[in-house]
């Protein structure tokens, strides 16, 4: 919102005030000033001139030669305006002067020397009227600088609208002036108004508010014999400076009032309006608004009507048919207050946000409607003294806000602020802001002024804000809290998450990525990935991505796909959320999952598989001290990217925490035929349920051990785990550990079999083992294995 300092100075004395400092104070105490414009600086040496002679330009049909009397001399200039006439008073820019970006110099225009310029309103920045030169309506001595009667010099500052969201009182200059008066500790002048009670003997307007829900108050009055059509120049300057387009006197006055008091108003051509009904309709219809657009009005949109037809959309925009025309001489003036939410919703539905609706959305003070009418009348009658009032002020006050009184004492303020603000200062600040302060020592009972009572100030904490923002946060003496020293226990979950990330990135060289919580359906389709139905977003702006993911893997495969051309080796992971269906209570079963994908063109698929298995084993060991087990996959075969054979479920103790799988070749070929891809997904919530195993240190033998490598001939389809079962069953006192060295397969040499080489380590805690002792243990073991059809190779 743009604020004119000239306008403000009508309400509080700004003489001698450092404007820069004031703007800084305003930012810190009230709302952010985003920009400051110095207006009128680019208008220099423009004076009142009288056109005393007009002649044709020798080389142009459009241009004229004019002689302009500027008091001290008569100047010859070239002018192209169609509206000039002999005797017209015009703003004339002298040589050496400036109009906007234009410096006035002697110039040859189409071959004739011009020594100055007649200016249009647009050139002076008064309005956007560029149809001709500005004709001055009043008589001024020739040669008078126009700035002597036009308020062109002004400082205009732009307040961030967002920072006014919760301050309905600041949507007009008078409210801003109230804040500024408090900040500079000067009085706020009252608004000059007409006393409407003078007209109470006149007949009322036939007004009925039929929708009592959406309307708080509707005030109106009628006037006639309006003879003027054009607003005074200084009013037009202010409107333009504050971002509004001057139109005609009545429209301008409604806008002026809105900018001054924050109260939106509407002027109807009283010839077209018989009476007023405020209502909604049971059927939708089309309505022509004054911007010439037909708009669909639904059954929830509040309308202003007369008994025949609607004449305006309440709080948003008036209708075309009842709007002020050039020949309008009688007016019905509306000053109303509507429900903020209803206006906001209607405005959204209509796709029509106006200066009026933007203000109503903020929950305006209904006490303002009548003073606004009275102020309007005062301004109108100043301009056009012949105006006659033809109705009494007709007012339907349907809903009122409750009076708010807040009780508190200084101790509360002290506790909240942490500093000592004196009771006198509290009283002074609140009084200046318009609160009715009732104080007994350090106890306060404070009445909230109506313009702050619609939603803004309701509780003690709100009062604290009023006191502190005027006190100034930069004046606070900030200090630390005093806390007891207590240990803080962090959850293991987060620590583990970071451990996993550090390990995957810095030990296994992977890259952490982030992806979206929904499936990217286009990409999945391209890769042939079928996803299961899951809970959906109902209003996404990207409607194709509306399904929340139930697994991380498709997102990560998408990332592999996007990068495969740049990198032949990819290792990526993400810890993210998925929704595993709905819980019994209908809420999403949100899970935190770790997804990992390894892809390689260099390694074989089997190598990649075991690399990822190693990653998982290291991870669970270092975090839980539990060895992961890999078992037949049944649960995850439903995903078409999971390999039907080479996929395994991952178990920690008895809990299944996820799965590991080779990428199904159907999908692989859509990414890259030569790429070997293996992935895993682990549910971190499930993993967190596993209690970490305590680590027990075992004494190391002082005696040397004996290692024996045995190559065992095993049926091809026997899993290592099975073999381990056989070994573990055999009681072998001194066997301290054994581990796999190699698996050898050769269909020619060993048809149907494979050779599994295992290294066994034997050691005693008490003594050095004799070789025959070890041999007998090995023999025993081999005998055991032989019974399982396993022989030494």
């Amino acid at each position: 919102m743009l604020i004119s300092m000239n306008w403000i100075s009508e309400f509080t004395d700004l003489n001698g005030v450092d404007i820069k400092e004031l703007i800084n104070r305003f930012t810190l105490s009230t709302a952010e000033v985003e920009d400051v414009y110095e207006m009128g600086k680019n208008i220099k040496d423009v004076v009142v001139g009288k056109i005393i002679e007009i002649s044709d330009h020798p080389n142009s049909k459009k241009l004229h030669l004019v002689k302009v009397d500027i008091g001290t001399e008569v100047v010859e200039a070239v002018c192209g305006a169609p509206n000039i006439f002999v005797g017209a008073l015009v703003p004339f820019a002298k040589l050496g002067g400036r109009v906007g970006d234009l410096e006035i110099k002697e110039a040859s225009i189409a071959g004739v020397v011009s020594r100055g310029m007649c200016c249009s309103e647009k050139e002076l920045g008064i309005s956007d009227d560029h149809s001709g030169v500005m004709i001055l309506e009043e008589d001024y001595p020739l040669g008078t600088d126009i700035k002597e009667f036009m308020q062109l010099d002004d400082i205009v500052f732009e307040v961030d609208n967002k920072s006014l969201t919760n301050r309905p009182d600041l949507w007009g200059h008078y409210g801003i002036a109230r804040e500024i008066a408090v900040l500079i500790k000067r009085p706020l002048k009252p608004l000059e108004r007409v006393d409407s009670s003078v007209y109470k003997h006149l007949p009322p307007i036939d007004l009925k508010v039929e929708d009592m829900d959406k309307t708080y108050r509707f005030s109106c009055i009628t006037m006639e014999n309006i003879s003027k059509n054009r607003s005074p120049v200084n009013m037009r300057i202010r409107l333009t400076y504050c971002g509004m387009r001057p139109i005609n006197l009545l429209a301008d006055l409604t806008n002026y009032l809105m900018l001054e008091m924050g109260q939106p108003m509407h002027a109807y051509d009283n010839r077209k309006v018989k009476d007023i009904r405020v209502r909604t309709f049971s059927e939708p219809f089309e309505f022509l608004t004054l911007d010439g657009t037909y708009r669909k009005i639904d059954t929830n949109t509040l309308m202003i009507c007369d008994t025949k037809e609607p004449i305006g959309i309440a709080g948003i925009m008036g209708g075309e048919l009842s709007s002020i025309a050039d020949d309008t001489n009688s007016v019905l003036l509306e000053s109303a207050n509507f429900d903020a939410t209803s206006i906001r919703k209607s405005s959204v539905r209509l796709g029509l946000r106006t200066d009026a609706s933007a203000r109503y959305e903020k929950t305006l003070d209904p006490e303002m409607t009548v003073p606004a009418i009275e102020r309007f009348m005062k301004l109108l009658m100043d301009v056009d003294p012949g105006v006659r009032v033809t109705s009494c002020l007709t007012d339907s006050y349907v809903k009122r806000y409750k009076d708010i009184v807040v009780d508190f004492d200084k101790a509360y303020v002290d506790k909240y602020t942490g500093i000592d603000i004196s009771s006198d200062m509290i009283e002074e600040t609140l009084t200046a802001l318009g609160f009715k302060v009732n104080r007994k020592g350090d106890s306060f009972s404070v009445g909230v002024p109506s313009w702050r009572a619609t939603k803004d100030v309701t509780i003690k904490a709100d009062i604290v804000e009023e006191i502190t923002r005027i006190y100034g946060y930069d004046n606070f003496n900030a200090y630390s809290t005093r806390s007891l020293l207590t240990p803080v226990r962090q959850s293991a979950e987060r620590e583990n998450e970071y451990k996993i990330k550090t390990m995957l990135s810095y030990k296994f060289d992977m890259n952490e990525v982030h992806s979206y919580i929904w499936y990217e359906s286009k990409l999945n389709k391209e890769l042939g990935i079928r996803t299961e139905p899951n809970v959906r977003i109902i209003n996404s702006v990207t409607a194709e991505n509306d399904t929340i993911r139930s697994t991380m893997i498709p997102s990560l495969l998408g990332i592999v796909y996007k990068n495969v051309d740049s990198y032949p080796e990819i290792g990526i992971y993400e810890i993210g959320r998925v929704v595993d269906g709905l819980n019994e209570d209908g809420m999403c079963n949100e899970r935190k999952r770790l997804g990992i994908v390894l892809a390689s063109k260099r390694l074989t698929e089997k190598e990649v598989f075991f690399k990822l298995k190693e990653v998982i084993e290291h991870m669970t060991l270092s975090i839980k001290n539990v060895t992961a087990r890999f078992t037949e996959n049944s649960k995850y075969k439903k995903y078409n990217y999971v390999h039907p054979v080479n996929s395994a479920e991952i178990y920690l103790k008895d809990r299944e925490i996820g799965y590991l799988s080779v990428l199904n070749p159907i999908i692989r070929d859509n990414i890259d035929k030569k790429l070997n891809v293996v992935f895993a997904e682990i549910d971190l919530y499930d993993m967190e349920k596993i209690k970490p195993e305590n680590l027990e240190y075992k004494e190391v033998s002082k005696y040397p051990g004996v290692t024996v490598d045995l190559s065992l001939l095993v049926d091809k389809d026997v899993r290592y785990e099975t073999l381990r079962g056989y070994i573990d069953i055999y009681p072998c006192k001194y066997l301290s550990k054994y581990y796999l060295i190699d698996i050898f397969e050769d269909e020619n040499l060993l048809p149907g079999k494979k050779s599994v080489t295992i290294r066994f380590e034997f050691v005693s805690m008490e003594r050095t083992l004799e070789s025959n002792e070890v041999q007998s243990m090995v023999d025993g073991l081999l005998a055991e294995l032989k019974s399982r059809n396993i022989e030494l190779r």
Partner: protein
Amino acid sequence: MTENLDNIKKQFYEELNSVNSYAELERVRVAYLGKKGLVTEQLKNLRYLTPEEKKTAGMMVNSLKDEIEQAIISYQGTLKEKEYRKEIEGAERYDFTIPTNRELGTLHPITIVQRRIEEIFMTMGFIIEDGLEIQTEYNNFEAVNTPKDHPARDMQDTYYLENGQLLKTHTSAAQNTIMRKYGAPKKGEHLKVLFPGRCFRNENVDASHENTFFQLEGMMIGDDISIANLIYFMKVLLTEVFERDVKIRLRPGFFPFVEPGFELDINCAICGGKGCPTCKNSGWLELLPCGMIHPNVLRMGGIDPEKYTGFAFGLGLTRLAMMKYNIKDIRLFNSGNLKQLKQFTR
């Protein structure tokens, strides 16, 4: 006798100094200390002397024997040194400018920044909490004092799910759950919690808008928390985060879940507060919203606002990461583009 010993000694040192290998050294040792060595001979000859002569001569011969033994031992060290010197001098000269090719993995830039900030908070005794991404309307809105008709609840900003839940629009959605989990702090203690999280806004994505982004929110609740504490704390915290002595200022700002609410600005690091295009010539950069937790929010969290006060603040983690790494396009974070992401080694 004395003269004889002196000669032996002189001869020994001459021979020793010309020794170049262990074998030669051993030969010298044998020649002097061996069974038939010169010094051994001298010891044997002692038996021909009178007891008196024996005493002094014995001492002299033994002292020579000790000296020679020591000299040989120390010469062994010299030889060892010579050998090492030779090995080192003959060693292959490695070209240590040859690159290694195992690439260091990377963390996501959000993780790096988030972890750093969490560490700062942990040193100040904050608990780190982790909220859900899918929330109820109550947690996301009502519980943080954003009633039904508030403009923030308009459909276009929030992703609503078909089961009535929504994707959380701000980390504040976790406030209620956290207050209920921990309850009001004991006398003299403070509830200090930091809760980072991923948030969602239903809007179109471009270089400066993402529908998925990270925030980080903190709050501190106790029976004596004041605005003065908030200002102090924010200054300390931001000094740590930005690793410079920041100046802060507070302006009124409206957020439904705080009262009073503030916009916190920090002095612009680019111009040092003098004014530049980055700070729109104001010398200040709007950084974060904060405020005293609204009494309604405390009440809904089961904490009595007559007894307890607290402050809360939010930090745009994604924005912070953009500032730290000078990232211009917000789409990098969720792009999965490894050319970009592989750069974040720390």
